């Protein structure tokens, strides 16, 4: 085969030229002048644009400071931060919930009023240190439902117990609806924790007992909920192929009216309102085993942390203080996801107010799948085991797998 060096030369030459033309444009921002980098949790609602708008008034007040919003380059904020810590090139601020494993790398917030006034500030200390401050609080053990579907199925009121919930799902199926909307990705396990955690952590700190070896998942309320979930799959009350769906698909599935119920945190309220479904949407607290109110999986909403390695700690503190205490900033943040904070009322939609009522009535808030006593990656593992139910893994086996995972990863 004949050919010349020209091919190689053309290849390299044009690549070089393209590099020269645009390469300079991509070399990073200038050092100095005060630049704050925020590594932010990006969702369909919390977009890059959202954060840019949120910090804009503070930037206008602090001339010469540039604020950059960084989108996670790895799967999520936690993994990205871990990479950045390893590389030594860290952001100044993190705008996301984090696993407490990184708490030693984060600045201790001063015990000043603006810090102590933030929601759940005492509950979220690690080793007595305030390592993150939240804008609001959120609750997640919520079941949103299609009121028209409930009427079609002849259901007169929201279920209180898991047993009643299952009966209602069966009635909804008869009425021609997909009874419960689920999805793949992280959604499957998250929904399970939303349903089951209030019961799991209802009578004492299960996670601490699990660490001490005095409790197992196999003999915990998780087992009951895994049994129920396996029954829903067997009876076709969830879509057997749901694991192929993305988070956004599940939102669309519910707002389009195909699915009758949807388990998700309160942050979904603005998305539902914006989708303006053709039916009335109601919401009830996740059903408990015995039908009595069991609490809510809940926690800090839109929290901020500052890296100890930040070169502009004062600026970072000033910006975070603005974000969690300025009236406009806090209200915008609360409204974006329908979160809560005392003495910060905002005009919410009717659905917002229903959720607020559940929030106010909840006997307690309980942890999700990450916390100071929980091994990192537990949420992933739970997700995997709940998804395994879809291929027919027995609930007892899934619960046992959680126990052996815990033993392998704790300590």
């Amino acid at each position, binding site marked *: *085969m004949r*050919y*010349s*060096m020209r*091919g*190689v030369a*053309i*290849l*390299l030459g*044009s*690549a*070089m030229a*393209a*590099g*020269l*033309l*645009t*390469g300079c*444009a*991509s*070399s*990073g*921002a200038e050092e100095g002048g005060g630049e704050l*980098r925020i*590594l932010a949790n*990006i*969702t*369909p609602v919390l977009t*890059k*644009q959202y954060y840019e708008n949120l910090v804009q008034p503070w930037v206008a007040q602090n001339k010469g400071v540039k604020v*950059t919003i*960084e*989108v*996670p*380059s*790895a799967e999520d904020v936690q993994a*990205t931060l871990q*990479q*950045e810590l*390893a*590389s*030594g*090139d*860290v*952001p100044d601020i993190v705008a996301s919930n984090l696993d407490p494993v990184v708490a030693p790398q984060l600045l201790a917030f001063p015990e000043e009023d603006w810090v102590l006034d933030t929601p759940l500030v005492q509950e979220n200390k690690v080793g007595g240190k305030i390592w993150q401050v939240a804008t609001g609080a959120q609750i997640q053990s919520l079941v949103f439902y299609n009121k028209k579907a409930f009427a079609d199925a002849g259901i007169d009121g929201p279920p209180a117990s898991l047993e009643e919930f299952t009966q209602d799902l069966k009635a909804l199926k008869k009425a021609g609806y997909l009874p419960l909307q689920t999805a793949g990705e992280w959604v499957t396990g998250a929904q399970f924790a939303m349903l089951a955690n209030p019961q799991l952590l209802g009578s004492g700190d299960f996670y601490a007992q699990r660490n001490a070896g005095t409790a197992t998942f196999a003999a915990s309320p998780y087992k009951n909920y895994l049994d129920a979930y396996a029954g829903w799959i067997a009876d076709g009350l969830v879509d057997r192929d749901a694991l192929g769906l*993305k988070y*956004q*698909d599940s939102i*669309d599935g519910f707002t389009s009216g195909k699915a009758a119920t949807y388990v998700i945190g309160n942050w979904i309220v603005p998305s539902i309102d914006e989708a303006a479904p053709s039916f009335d949407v109601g919401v009830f607290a996740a059903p408990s085993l015995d039908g009595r109110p069991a609490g809510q999986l809940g926690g800090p909403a839109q929290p901020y942390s500052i890296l100890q390695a930040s070169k502009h700690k004062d600026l970072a503190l000033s910006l975070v203080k603005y974000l969690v205490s300025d009236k406009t900033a806090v209200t915008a943040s609360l409204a974006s996801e329908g979160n809560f904070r005392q003495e910060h009322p905002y005009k919410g939609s009717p659905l917002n107010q229903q959720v607020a009522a559940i929030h106010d009535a909840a006997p307690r808030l309980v942890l999700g799948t990450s916390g100071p006593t929980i091994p990192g990656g537990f949420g992933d593992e739970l997700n995997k085991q709940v998804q395994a139910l879809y291929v027919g893994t027995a609930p007892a086996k899934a619960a046992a797998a959680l126990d052996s995972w815990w033993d392998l990863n704790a300590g």
Partner: protein
Amino acid sequence: MTARLLRGVVLVVLAAVMAAPLYLLATNAFKSQDDIVGSPFGVPADGFTLDNIVRAATSADFNVLGAYGTTALLVAAVNVLSILVTGPAAYAIARGTRRGHRLVLLVLLMGLFIPSQAIVIPVIYVLRTIGLMGTVPGLVLFQTALTIPTTVFLFTAFVQSIPRELDKAARIDGASRMGTFWRIIFPLMRPAVATAVVLNSVSVWSDFVNPRIILGPGSGVYTVTTGVFAAVSKYSTDFTIVYSNMLLAVAPALVFYVLLQKRIIGGLTSGAVKG
């Protein structure tokens, strides 16, 4: 006759299987979400639209031009550096007679068996120590090191096929060994160089883990792969974003490939056989 028929059928099926995804990519980038979901293979009744592609090209999430610039710069720099460093080494090894030469060759080939993703965390520490973490030069050095095994493999095999008499003649004329290599031997190595350039260019262009971790989000520098990942992964159900961003990301590379296909595939088939 049946053999010809069979061959024809196989080729048609193969062409369909290989081309269908490209067809979907090329057409769906110009269709609305409803048209993509409703009839992914069809032509929309109300025609194609440029809206998605314009939105993707101007979106703040993915600076296509910047990403292409970075990637092109990486490809060029890694290729040049790789040839500069590996050429003389391969020549010295191919002409060497000592046991040390074989040992060095083995060491240089080591990287062939090491998945770069498995050593990227330690590499972070090497780059931190020499102050190049989070920088494009740091990434270029690492990627160059990753190209050395294949390149040295191709080059030594090729040099061994060049008669030693040529070197001797050059030395009698008073040329140094380095001079002999660059002036006499290197120009003869076109096929091997072409193969190496194609392989190394593709591996740098499609590299994802290394730029993602070594450049990180803090540098603000994206390659095409890390850029398109950031732009697409969060919105994977919105096909108007997915298809248009992907088309933008691959179109220049594909055009380049089709224009130069003779040299690219020819380069691969002619340089790879020695060895």
